[in-house]
């Protein structure tokens, strides 16, 4: 169901993100790929949104633009009233540093640093971070502080990545297929952590997946296809990750 003005006005504060008419065109050699063909979207503070869609639908592109990793070809994106689409590279770096926590499918930890150090890398440059031990405690890895990524399982690595993202107390958590490389059981553990963080700390969270079952845990489900938003649905009841089967 398309989000209506009523929904927008209904009791929610100013959106954290406001995207209007966002387009993104890639040039791959001689071929032009239209990844996004005009996206309008608002994300509100504290909610957990799942971006659902098949591969190639443009959901990652949208997330990257929201996170300041990529720039839109057209349209505007505002974060708390500041326009991202015209920010310089330096400003985007600063934006990512202060406001965004990322979690990726393949964890992207620094292999030469321990779990604790991987989180410290971020807290060392943050303004008001959590203590790295605290963040790792949040994700249930208090006893694995001094292990290197090579010594951790996939699920543990992803949890370190989550701790790293949340330790800086970001305004926004952006997760791109966080369970994509994990088996079902481990995936549930990870999603549990994300859900808990969203609930306990109240960080606005956007989560990408192609797995419709996961959508059950979101406040709103945004279906993305062929470069546009096809529908936005509100979940009446949010499912806990443990309840999910896939």
């Amino acid at each position: 169901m398309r989000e209506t003005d009523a929904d927008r006005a209904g009791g929610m504060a100013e959106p954290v993100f406001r995207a209007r008419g966002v387009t993104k065109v890639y040039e791959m050699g001689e071929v032009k790929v239209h990844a996004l063909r005009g996206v309008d979207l608002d994300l509100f503070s504290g909610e957990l949104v799942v971006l659902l869609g098949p591969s190639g639908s443009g959901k990652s592109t949208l997330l990257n633009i929201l996170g300041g990793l990529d720039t839109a070809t057209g349209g505007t994106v505002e974060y708390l009233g500041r326009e991202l689409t015209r920010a310089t590279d330096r400003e985007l770096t600063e934006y990512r540093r202060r406001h965004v926590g990322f979690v990726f499918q393949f964890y992207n930890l620094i292999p030469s640093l321990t779990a604790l150090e991987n989180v410290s890398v971020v807290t060392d440059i943050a303004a008001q971070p959590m203590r790295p031990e605290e963040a790792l405690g949040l994700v249930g890895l208090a006893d694995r502080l001094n292990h290197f990524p090579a010594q951790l399982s996939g699920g543990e690595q992803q949890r370190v990545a989550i701790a790293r993202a949340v330790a800086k107390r970001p305004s926004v958590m952006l997760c791109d297929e966080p369970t994509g490389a994990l088996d079902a059981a481990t995936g549930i553990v990870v999603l549990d952590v994300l859900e808990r963080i969203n609930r306990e700390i109240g960080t606005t969270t956007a989560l990408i997946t192609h797995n419709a079952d996961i959508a059950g845990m979101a406040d709103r489900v945004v279906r993305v296809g062929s470069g546009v938003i096809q529908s936005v649905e509100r979940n009446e009841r949010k499912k806990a990750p443990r309840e999910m089967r896939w």
Partner: protein
Amino acid sequence: MKGQALAIAMVIVSGVATYVISVTTLDSLRETRAAFYRDYRFAELFVSLKRAPESAAEAVRAIPGVDRVETRVAAWATLDVPGFTEPVRGLLLSVPDAGEPALNALHLREGRAVVPGRDDEIIAGEAFAQAHRLRPGDRIGAVIHGRRKALRVVGIGLSPEYVYEVGPGAVFPDPKRFGVFWMGRKALASASGMEGAFNDLSATLSPGASRQDAVGRVDAVLSRYGGLGAYPRDDQVSHRYLTEEFRQLGTLASIFPVIFLGVAAFLLNVVVGRLVSLQRDQIGILKAFGYSNADVGMHYVKLIVLIVLVGAAGGIGVGAWLGRGMTRMYMAFYRFPHLHYELRPAVAATAGLVSVASAVLGALQAVRKAERMTPAEAMLPEPPGRFRVTLLERLGLRRLLSQPGRMIARNVARRPLKSALSILGIAFACAILMLGNVQEDAVGFMVDTQFRLAQREDMTVSFVEPVSARALSELRSIPGVWYGEPYRSVPVRLRFGHRSWRTAVQGFSGGGSLHRVLDTRLRPVAMPREGILMTDYLAERMGLRPGDRVSVEVLEGARPVRDVPVVGLVGEYFGVNAYMDLRALNRLLGEENAISGAFLSADRADRQSVYDALKGMPGVAGTVVRVDAIRNFYETMGGTLLLFTFVITLLAASVAFGVVYNSARIALSERGRELASLRVLGFTRGEISYILLGELSLLTVAGIPVGFLIAGGMTAYIAERMKSDLYRVPMVMEGSSYGFAAAVVIVSALLSGLLVRRRLDRLDLVAVLKTRE
């Protein structure tokens, strides 16, 4: 990959070029020398004597083993060259009045041979002629045996005897102040009082004849005529210097190419290794489809061979070009009729083969890695590296290091061998840079020690014949001379055990301050009342130690033979000598206070008038001025040293650049992902540059002191190999050489760093994050 291949190719070019330069130059010089000696009948045995009648030559001819014999007249002269006021010494040698010399023939560069019947015609040696711009037709004045004579240059020539035209006791040619000339026999004989006689003899030996034997027998025949000891071609000065030069080139040819090619091989191993890692899945697929291990291996071998051949081709081209230039440079020091430069195909082929072989061997490990992977293994992602907290951190430094600092430290520590080899590569570049400068330092030190510490006289005067010590006061009374010290010099043969050595014993007055003798620690040493002081190198060669007694056979006058104790050792860099107290030497010779010459000090302003006065004194054979000798040295050698240093610097810089650039590119390739992750996390470009370049800086900075150590070792090795009785090069490394080497390495590293940084800035964050490790 292109940039890296290019950087490696540059290192190979350096290696191959140094090889080609040294080998071709050596080849060309050897060939040219052999041809010159052969075509101009260079003698095999030489002897100077006081005076013998022409008939005495028959006795020498009769010696079994002696093939051809030619007698000559030789005379020293003081020359008056128009437009040149400083003292000039000349050696005049006779040529047959009719026909060519049987031995030691002349190559006429310009003009014509002397004509019989004219008594003033000379052929001037080319070096001297060029230095003074003399042409056939020019005139110079000469004082021969106290009598003035006007001479006319009719031709300009070269002789195999004086390829290296260096005066007696000198180390470097001084073409402005010493020259060799040829004059008709009759004319020279009458000018020097040698009519019907000879005082110089050359001979060749029959094939298979013993040189030792011949030398002994010639000495036996000629000793009654004041023979100063025959010597074979091996000891002939010009020939010796050439041989030493060849030895040096040979040493260089063995050291530099090995280092450069070694570094190139290491770099290829690293680069191909990385390539194989990056192309794992492609290798897996090819193997899955039936390509054999050998096929895959060959693919990488072909890549290596391609890079090496490009480098080798470049190196051969550069080497041939530089070699030609270097060979031409040699013409300025070594007087050959023409210098034939040739790049033999065998040299080029060897260079190519050796580079390919070393490269393939070096990269063998990487190639084998590609061959050994099973298809399934290959298609899996590379297993993550195992990191550890480094030793340093465990010792407590951990707290001091930021996370980026820890990343740097652990990356370096994870592959200790590779890190060590990278450091070694940079170290060698640093060492080579130092070598170039250290040569200059050493020579500067040698000259300084010799000419400023030891020989402090302004000029050295030598007499035609030993004279009474009273002549000294005559010299001292020349207006402008304010101090003088006498010396006595006698040619001798020293014997100890079965070893003998022909040299001169120099007698100085005790407590002399002008011309001093230094001990092995370069402190002035007083002349002992009795006994001999000997150059340390000579003592070593003769197996002598202070305390031993050496037999001294005097080769002039009454030719007494005496046993004299060796009382101490002398540190010298040029030549080998024996020293005694002047009075003690006189006693040894059984003479009263005789001197061969004097060391004088004179004010700069008065020098000219002193020269003139000396020129006018009939007993004076010649004058050598010290300041000129130093200036001349720097004039001749300075230019070559500079060129050599420049070329070596370029080559070494390319090695430093190559090693750092490759390390940087590989590091970027291996760490691109984590660096992009950091950018995603909000690290600025500057901050991730610090991480990447921090590791490289660590390697570079570690390499520099190791390079200094290696340079020390190489310098010692080279100095040891170049030791000879002609000169010994001290190990001297000035602070400026260290500084220069470090600076060039750092600049090369900075340049590579900048180039890599540009790539770093353009990291595509999105693309990198989508791929698995």
